[in-house]
Each structure stands twice: as C-alpha cells, then as structure tokens.
C-alpha cells in the first residue's frame, strides 16, 4: 500500500448535531480524510449510523463512510441489507464496523444452539453471513433484457443456506453486489475477537493504541495459516486525541509512524465539539487525498475482491 489511510470517528446526535457533522465531514473531505466512521451509541444520544450516513452521503457524495453496528438487536439479514443498500447508494463508498455483542429478539427466539453465547463466536458467524449475503446476488445477474422479458438471471443468484450455532439464514439478499463488490468489513480489536477469525473475514482491522507495537506482527502470524496476504487486510491504529488542544503530529510524522509500525493508517478519535474536531483537521495539514471516484476499498489501498464480479 502506498498511501496512509485516515479514518475520522464521529458520533452524531446530542453532542454533535447534524449541521456540525455536515461541516466537519465537508472539512474532512477537503483535508483528504479517507472515510468517516460513524459511531454507534446509546439511543437518545447517538443517531443511527446508517441513517446518518445515508443522509450525509447525498450531500457530500465524494466522501466515504464506515457505519458502526453491534450484533445486538440487529438480525443479520436486516443489517446486511441496510449496509449493502448504503454501499450501493454511495457507489461503493461504504463499510461496516461490526461490533461484538448479543443477539436480537427475532433470531434469539429460534436460536439453533441454546448454549451458544460467546460474543467472539457470534461475531465470526455473523461476519460470515454478512459477506455471504453481500455476494449472493452478483451484479451481473441484473439483466433488464426488455426484449426477452428476462429481468434477472436467477441462475446466478444463490441462497447462502447458512446453518450455524447462532443463526439460520437462507438468503439470497434482494439487491445486487455493489461497485466495490461488497461493503468493506471492519473488525475492531477493542472487542474480544478471535484474531484468526478477524484475519479470515475482515478487510480492515483497527487496533487500539496499547496494541500498536505488536499489532503488525500478530496480524501477520494469523494471516498465514488462513491463506491471506498481508495486503488484503488494512491495519489501522486507533489514536485517541481527546483533550489535545491541537494535533500532536503533522501529516508527515503520522506517515513515518505508520511506516515504522507497519500500519496502513490511523483512526483518529476526538471526543470533542465541532471547534476541536475542525482544529484537529486543520492542524493535520494537507493529506494525500484519495481519487474522488475511489471506492472505500480502493481508497484504503485494498486489492479488488477475488471472485466477486462487479
């Protein structure tokens, strides 16, 4: 990978309203930020990230979005649909940071294995279902052949027939794959994750500050047995700047830091108000801006998905 990716965290709701979010996101686009990660949080405090992303995406079409959602309260079919809809509506500029958690009311009522509870096992099964569903209706199946009266080639659209410990999901999804194949899947190492699962399933792994020193080596060690190359997973360091009056590094220093830790970029966290976040973006200085038409996958420097026609 040649560029250092920058993802900026935002929690839009009572502390940071929509107008603030719009202003910050516009400044982030102009500063060359790769993507905004919309954080989830308590209802009544943080607005649903998929709704916020869809709302803002229409106003800032060049920007990219990572929406955060936990397994809790989200049936996989519904979340898969919602995020793919967003990804299609943003021309392949969206991803999902799937967080570990519990189940949802609809799936729990018919859970195949009543003993299954481990959040990291649920995460892995959930992530498998998502990627399976996202690829179940390949875009080339959409024909729209008016003369022949064939709208879609249903031979290409296949159920996933998932039978796991937590979920049973037939599929396929109702909409075709997106411009980047499927939404980017982000694993967050603050969650109790099995790294081998994350390395197998995720496109991006975000590691917290205290794990930065060892993250690259640890990722390399788990990638090899699952047969993936290092460049297939973007490794981002999570840097909490809350309370900093200004950015402690320039863009060049961040890039050097990424190189020395074998990171592909950073996720910047600042639990502050509009002024503080805008000041941080200014202080970072100009960043190498991704090509405006780049999908999220491309902007993160990830290779095209193998076997997923777009």
């Amino acid at each position, binding site marked *: 990978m040649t560029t250092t990716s920058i993802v900026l965290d935002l929690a839009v709701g009572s502390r940071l309203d929509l107008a603030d979010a719009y202003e910050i996101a516009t400044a982030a686009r102009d500063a060359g930020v790769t993507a905004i990660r919309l954080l989830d949080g308590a*209802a009544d405090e943080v607005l*649903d990230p998929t709704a916020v992303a869809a709302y803002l995406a229409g106003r800032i079409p060049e920007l990219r979005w990572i929406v955060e959602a936990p397994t809790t*309260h989200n049936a996989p079919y519904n979340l898969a649909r919602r995020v793919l809809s967003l990804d299609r*509506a943003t021309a392949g500029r969206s991803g999902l940071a799937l967080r570990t958690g519990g189940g949802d009311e*609809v799936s729990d009522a018919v859970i195949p294995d009543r003993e299954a509870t481990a959040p990291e096992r649920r995460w892995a099964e959930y992530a498998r279902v998502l990627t399976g569903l996202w690829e179940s209706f390949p875009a080339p199946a*959409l024909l729209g052949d*008016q003369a022949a009266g064939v709208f879609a080639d249903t031979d290409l659209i296949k159920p996933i027939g998932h039978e796991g410990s937590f979920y049973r999901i037939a599929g396929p999804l*109702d909409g*075709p794959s997106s411009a980047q194949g499927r939404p980017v899947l982000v694993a967050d190492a603050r969650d109790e994750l099995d790294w081998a699962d994350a390395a197998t399933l995720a496109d991006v792994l975000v590691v917290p500050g205290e794990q930065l020193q060892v993250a690259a080596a640890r990722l390399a060690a788990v990638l090899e047995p699952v047969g993936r190359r290092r460049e297939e997973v973007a490794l981002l360091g999570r840097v909490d700047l809350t309370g900093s009056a200004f950015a402690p590094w320039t863009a060049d220093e961040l890039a050097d830091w990424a190189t020395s830790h074998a990171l592909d970029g950073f996720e910047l966290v600042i639990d502050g108000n509009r002024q503080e976040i805008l000041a941080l973006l200014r202080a970072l200085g100009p960043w190498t801006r991704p090509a405006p038409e780049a999908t999220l996958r491309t902007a993160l420097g990830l290779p095209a998905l193998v076997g997923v026609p777009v």
Partner: protein
Amino acid sequence: MSRQLHLNVNILNAGVFGGSWRFPGTDPLASYTVEHYIAIAKKAEAAKLDAVFLADGPVIEPLVRHRPGNNLEPTTVLARIAGQTERIGLIGTLSSSYNDPVELARRVADLDYLSGGRVGWNVVTTAGAAAARNFGRAEEPEHALRYQRAARFTREVTVLWDERRNLVSAQGRPVVVQAGGSSDGRRLASQVGEVIFSADQDLEHARAFRAEIRSGTREFGRRPEDVVVLPGLSTVLGSTEEEARRRREILDEVLPDAYARRRLAGQLGFSLDGLPDDEPIPRELLVEPDAAGGSQTFYRVVKAIIDRENPTLGQLLRKLSGGGGHRIVVGTPEQIADDIQRWFEAGAADGFNVMPDVLPSGFDDFADHLVPELRRRGLFRREYEEITLRDRLGLDVPGRPRAPYLAAAPAASR
C-alpha cells in the same frame, strides 16, 4: 377551508404493473439505483404531495426473473431523500415480524428526527415462507399470530417513542401507517393505525371499510378522525381517452406471461398449472378469505373480482396485469380526477396512495397533469402549509392538547 385530499406516491420500483420495466422508453434497471427514488421524491415535493411511500419485505422478490422487486432498504433510501428534500413526507415499510422492536423504534425515530418530523412507519406482518427462512424459521407464523405480534410490537415501539426525551422530532413521533385488509388487519388498523393504506376495487365496499375502521377506533379510546384512509390507486394516464387505453394495452402486451400466472398463483396460494386461459378458475379451489394463508388482503380482492365477474383465467390475468390487486383507473386527467373526486366525496377515501403504472413517466404525468386538475377543483393544496407529516395529515401530536372537536366532514357522516 374545505376538506382536502391526501396524496402519496408509492414508488413501487419500476411501476405497479408486471411489465412496467418493459414499457417503451423506460430504463429497465433504474429502480435498482437510489437516484430513481430521489428524483421521484423531488418531483413529489414539487407537486406538494403528502409523502412518498416505499413498500418492502426482507426477502428477494421470488419472480425477479421476470420483473424488478423492491431492492433497497427503505430507511436508508428515506434518510438519503431526507437530506435532499425539505418538506415531502417519508413513509417506509418495516416488518413487525422480522425486526427487533428496540432497534426499529430507535432507527425510525432517528430518521424522523433527522428529517425534521416527516416520517411514517408502515407496519406490515410480511407474508410468506421465503422471508421466514431469512430469520431462522421454516414457515411463516400463522396469520392470526402474525397480527397478535404486530399489535404487541407496534404498542412497544410507540411506548419507546413516547419515552424518548432527546432527539425528538417536531411531530413528536412518527406516524403509524397500516395496510392489512384482513379482519385481523382491520382490527389492528382501528387500534393503532393513523394512516390506513387499503386495497379496494369497489366504492361501496371502500366506504363501508372506512366507516368500520373509523367507528372501530372508539373501542380503543381513539376518535374517528384519528385515522386517515388512503386506498391504493393504480393510474394509467393519457392526454386523450384513446391514448390512455393504448397505454393500458401496451402494459398488457409487455407483461411477461410466466410472471402473471405465477404471481396470481402466489396471491391465491395454489398452483394454476394446467388450468386453461379460456375458462374460469374452478370454484372448489377458492377457500374463504379468512382461511387463506398468505396475504389475505389480495386474496380478498381477487376473490371479489371472481365472485362478481366470473372471468376466465385469461381475463383475470389481464385485469390484474401483474399488479398488486389495487384498483386501476385508466383515462384522461379529467376522467381520473372525476373518479378521485367521486370516491373522496362519497366518504370512501381521505385520499389515495397512488401507484403509477410506470416510473418515472407515469408519475410525471400524474404530477404535471392530474394534480393541477385536482387543484382547479379545489381538492388539493397549492402550497405546503404544515411542516410535519403528522400536521399535514391532521393527526394529533402525542402529548400536545387536542384541538377542540370539529364535526366530521359531511361526506363522512352520510
């Protein structure tokens, strides 16, 4: 001011007919892009419609080989539209059987907040085994159970909305829309529905339906005017009668044959294989609507046509034309305005959920030619007056004192 119509446009992908996507001059794949929905919503806002309406189910359209299906998740599309419009109402369909009430309540209320109080939630129970299999179930829950859950679920969601203290929209909470025409569905409508999206072919029947829903509200401590009844109306418009009739004929010609039969079989719940086109469907195959398993609303509509007209299978397929079983009107703007006015003034409807024959062209004609005709007759607004969807529909805001009781419109008391 005299009573005014409420009009929504149901953006049913490429249009309500099975062959809409093949209509000459139509981009067959447009309804698989979000831009299609945004452009129609902007047009609807320019025409001062009440709202856009998105049908939905968490399942792939089983007949996608032959026609487009609903393919973008509604809250995502509506949030996008909210960011690019100011006033148009935003009604999305979300299943009560296959959503977690806590998550749905939060997401729909958030959408309502970010749209400035323009959102409605259309509660559906979602028929069919295919959807059930996407949520760990082998078969759909039995009809009455689906509706019991829907009532419980809707109550839980509205309680969560009322408990919300932060990020509350200007309309207090989203409008609850409900569509079921079954007896279970009608009871749910009286209990929780604020807008009723019904399916009716016949004016007298529609008038009785509206009266039943309105009087049924009292049992649940509500008032008849707390409910707005909007039957579905499929429109085929032409600048002359001949042009409209020709448009209707083309829609028949482009209807994929295999689709029409399979669609009707799905609506009736039995196979039509081997049945000839030139004979009526054998009566012994048709059970009573309350015993039908899938969507009782459409079973009821189709059975009523059979009972009334005894058409051959071929005639029935052409009459339905791959549509949902909603009433189809064909004619000039003046003729369709006459029909709308008749239903409205007879107390059969408070307005309509309009399902254009082809999208976007059929809706462009509706907005450019039919809406002005309705305005000339004093039946439809020229400008938006209210900000929120709830206010536009004349519905109470929960927690806000009710306006003094006003006598119901003359049509309603006849």
